[in-house]
């Protein structure tokens, strides 16, 4: 546990700093400010860097935290320790409210949306009577333990840095868990995550709340450090600055938030105190220099400074192999594996005037490999998307074990035991192969975010990772288990996708061009694997262009052309079918 050790050392160093003889008190003030900013930035790391949701509105949540404790501890005389949970609850529940609206926004709407409500809330803070309008609220009581009052920046220092380090630990625990993998998959789009049962809007809301609660905690500490609040530090400018801190530090790394906070706070201080000496008499020079440095930094290190910083550290050893003796319970199956698993009846999908899938009917039986072939644009992938709930059919019906699933979302389809791979590989490139594959077992784990933060999920987690490791070994990628998925060849990435789909413990496996990019030997190994799976009781439906591969493997073949089924039968009959030959080779006049 090398990282735990570094955190312990960091904590000890931070604890020792105030005792360094001759430490200027002003430096402690700076460290307090760094800690406060780091808390907010850490939330943004999770939200923006990891989850891909850019928020300009975090300053507003700091404001919620600060104002909650300010009002309650002055007007109602509540103890600051009592207002701590209340501050967190207020920021958290307002995050639910704003998050429900915001997280559904896609792409660039989201940052702009947060900017808008961030500004609106800032003006609200400065206009509301009970929040003291522009003057704010003063004479907030200090934090105290018994008779000890944290009046000086040096005494609240510990409260702030304990909060920072505990929050960092909890956040890192969260990221390294079942929920964390779902969060880390968010940035790469929602289709892949949803195909394995992740409820993406809920996962987004979760990170939103997490970030807001951290911001609220920072606000609560801020109120008791300054002992006064006014609207200025909660405006749009501050919201932008927090985001800036996260990006400077390295938006993908929890400690990047702390590093970014240190750099920005110190830099601003240095600029404010030394620039006037160099360029006297000119107003906001520090803002100008600050802005220019920001742009320069982005051009030189767009990924932030933490990765650059870490490149000087000794290489982290990769994790050991999970204990594969742990068994994950197999999914309870809806019915015995016999008869028709999947029935597609007159399925039709229309995109405007184009019928991508035109009244296609076929079925997949238990213990059967069915191949869906056809020239490019025949509607094979669309058929896959209809079956897995990514698209909903315009008409017709799709049923699994006799139950209609036309309108079911992907998360429900996977629960029925249908898992898939994608034509365009959808792995999270900066997660290891093991973590990517463990995504497949998402529905087979149970630990929630709170349990993950507190590390109560370890037993559950070990089983999930064991299952993932087993499937990786099964597809023959044990060597690559701890490599980043993005570093594998495309062919291997396709195999990783198969391992991930196997982690669902499916009864039907949908493979979209699994053999594309594989070498001859690898194709043979894949064919052997698929036959083994079939003999073990699984059914496979695959789309494939490699005719040799399909003809040798499939029990039955369905041929589509321009969205319409033109033939169905055993490989031998398909080979001699005149319609199929016409579709593939054209017809001799």
């Amino acid at each position, binding site marked *: 546990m090398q990282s735990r050790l570094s955190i312990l050392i960091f904590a000890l160093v931070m604890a020792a700093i105030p005792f360094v003889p001759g430490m200027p008190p002003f430096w402690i003030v700076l460290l307090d400010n760094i800690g406060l900013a780091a808390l907010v930035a850490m939330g943004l790391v999770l939200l923006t860097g990891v989850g891909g949701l850019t928020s300009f509105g975090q300053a507003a949540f700091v404001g919620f935290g600060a104002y909650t404790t300010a009002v309650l501890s002055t007007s109602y005389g509540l103890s600051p320790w009592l207002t701590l949970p209340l501050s967190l609850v207020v920021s958290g529940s307002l995050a639910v409210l704003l998050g429900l609206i915001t997280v559904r926004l896609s792409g660039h709407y989201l940052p702009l949306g947060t900017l808008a409500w961030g500004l609106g809330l800032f003006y609200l803070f400065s206009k509301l009577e009970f929040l003291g309008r522009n003057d704010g609220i003063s004479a907030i009581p200090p934090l105290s333990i018994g008779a000890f009052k944290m009046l000086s920046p040096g005494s609240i220092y510990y409260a702030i840095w304990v909060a920072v380090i505990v929050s960092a630990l909890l956040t890192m625990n969260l990221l390294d868990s079942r929920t964390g993998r779902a969060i880390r998959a968010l940035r790469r789009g929602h289709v892949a995550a949803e195909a394995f049962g992740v409820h993406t809007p809920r996962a987004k809301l979760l990170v939103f709340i997490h970030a807001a609660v951290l911001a609220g905690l920072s606000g609560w500490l801020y109120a008791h450090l300054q002992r006064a609040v006014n609207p200025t530090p909660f405006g749009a400018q501050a919201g932008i600055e927090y985001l800036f801190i996260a990006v400077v530090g390295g938006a993908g790394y929890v400690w990047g938030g702390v590093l970014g906070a240190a750099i920005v706070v110190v830099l601003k201080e240095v600029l404010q105190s030394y620039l006037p000496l160099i360029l006297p008499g000119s107003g906001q020079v520090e803002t100008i220099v600050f*802005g220019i440095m920001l*742009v320069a930094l982005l051009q030189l290190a767009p990924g932030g400074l933490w990765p650059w910083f870490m490149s000087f550290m000794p290489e982290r050893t990769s994790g050991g192999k999970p204990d594969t003796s742990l068994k994950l319970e197999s999914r309870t199956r809806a019915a015995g594996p016999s008869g028709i698993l999947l029935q597609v009846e007159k399925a039709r999908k229309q995109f405007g005037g184009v019928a991508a899938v035109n009244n296609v009917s076929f079925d997949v039986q238990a213990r059967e490999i069915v191949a869906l072939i056809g020239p490019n644009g025949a509607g094979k992938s669309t058929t896959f998307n209809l079956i897995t709930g990514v698209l909903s059919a315009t008409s017709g019906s799709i049923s699994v074990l006799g139950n209609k699933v036309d309108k079911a979302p992907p998360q429900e389809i996977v629960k029925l035991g249908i898992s898939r791979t994608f034509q365009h590989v959808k792995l999270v490139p900066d997660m290891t192969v093991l973590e990517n594959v463990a995504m497949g077992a998402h529905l087979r784990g149970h630990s929630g975010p709170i349990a993950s933060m507190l590390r109560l999920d370890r037993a559950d987690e070990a089983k999930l990772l064991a299952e993932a490791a087993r499937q990786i070994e099964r597809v023959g990628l044990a060597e690559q288990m701890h490599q980043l998925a993005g570093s594998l060849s495309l062919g291997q990435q396709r195999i990783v996708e198969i391992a991930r789909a196997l982690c669902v413990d499916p009864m039907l496996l949908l493979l979209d061009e699994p053999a594309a990019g594989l070498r001859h030997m690898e194709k043979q190994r894949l064919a052997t694997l698929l036959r083994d799976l079939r003999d073990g009781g699984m059914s496979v439906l695959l789309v494939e262009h490699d005719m040799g591969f399909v003809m040798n493997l499939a029990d039955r073949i369905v041929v589509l052309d321009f969205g319409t089924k033109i033939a169905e039968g055993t490989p031998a009959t398909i080979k001699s079918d005149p319609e199929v030959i016409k579709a593939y080779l054209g017809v001799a006049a």
Partner: protein
Amino acid sequence: MNTTIMLFLVQDGITNGAIYALLGLALVLVFAVTRVILIPQGEFVTYGALTYASLAAGQMPGTAKLALALGIGAFVFDLFVARKALHGRLILRSIVANIVLPAIVLALTVYFAAQKPPVAICIALSLVIVAMIGLYLYRIAFQPLAHTSVLVLLIASVGVHLALQGLGLLFFGAEGQRGPAVLSGAFTAGALRFTGQSITVYAITIAFIIGLWLFFGLTLYGKALRATAVNRLGARLAGIRTTLSGQIAFLLASVIGALSGILIVPITTLYYDSGFLIGLKGFVAAIIGGLVSYPLTAVAALVVGIVEAFSSFYASNYKEVIVFMLLIPVLLLRSLAAPAVEEEKD
């Protein structure tokens, strides 16, 4: 409230809304082509306005010097990028575009500033100065980042905004300024009084909307810009110079920003930091328009202007709260109407 007040508020709202529409259009344009969310749009507004006001008052605006300084910066960037394949024509072209041009404009500005030039010359000079600033800014700050994520571009945009706002204080001081009307004179229709200025605002907004529509619909450059917006790599493979598209977008945005500034500075006093808030209201309109649709953005901007006018009459304290919170129901409707589509990021 009586009808007169209502009409008056609507008129006021439309005038402001027209300005927001212009800014919204520029934001949509820049975002669509370069993926930059142009926070410094507000600075283009104040730079345009205050340069115009300074010139009209016979003062030398610092922005002309900034344009030259940025031009020199752009020249250095050009040289650095082309350092492996330097040849005379390239250097010459870069010198003319980045150094000679702003130097001439600076000389003209110094010459005219001393003699309180007529309104037309003030407008022309302000537009050219801000246009150059926009163009060189793209070259220096954004072109090297063109391949990065929207987030990085956004943060860079914030950096540029901070630097420009600080420079604004340096150039124009903390006091607000007003400029002379672009078109004086007025006429009344019923209870309403239409000033030449407000008529100019309407006319220019409409002209720009039609102009942009024609530019994007009919011209080759317009189509190239749209192609860049859809797929940068694809556009490059088709022979479109994507850096040129970015430059055109920034040029247009800075001209539109400066123009908006010149149009409002006779109506309201502008300060060096007023632009941010004005630009943000353009944002609200642009978001309502979904950052893609020009006509929708224009309509949304009028709504923003009118809501602002009415809320400043009824609840002036909560004016900004109402304008920015207006966005929430809009976003809600948008997200309900259009389920999020899969997008590949990074």
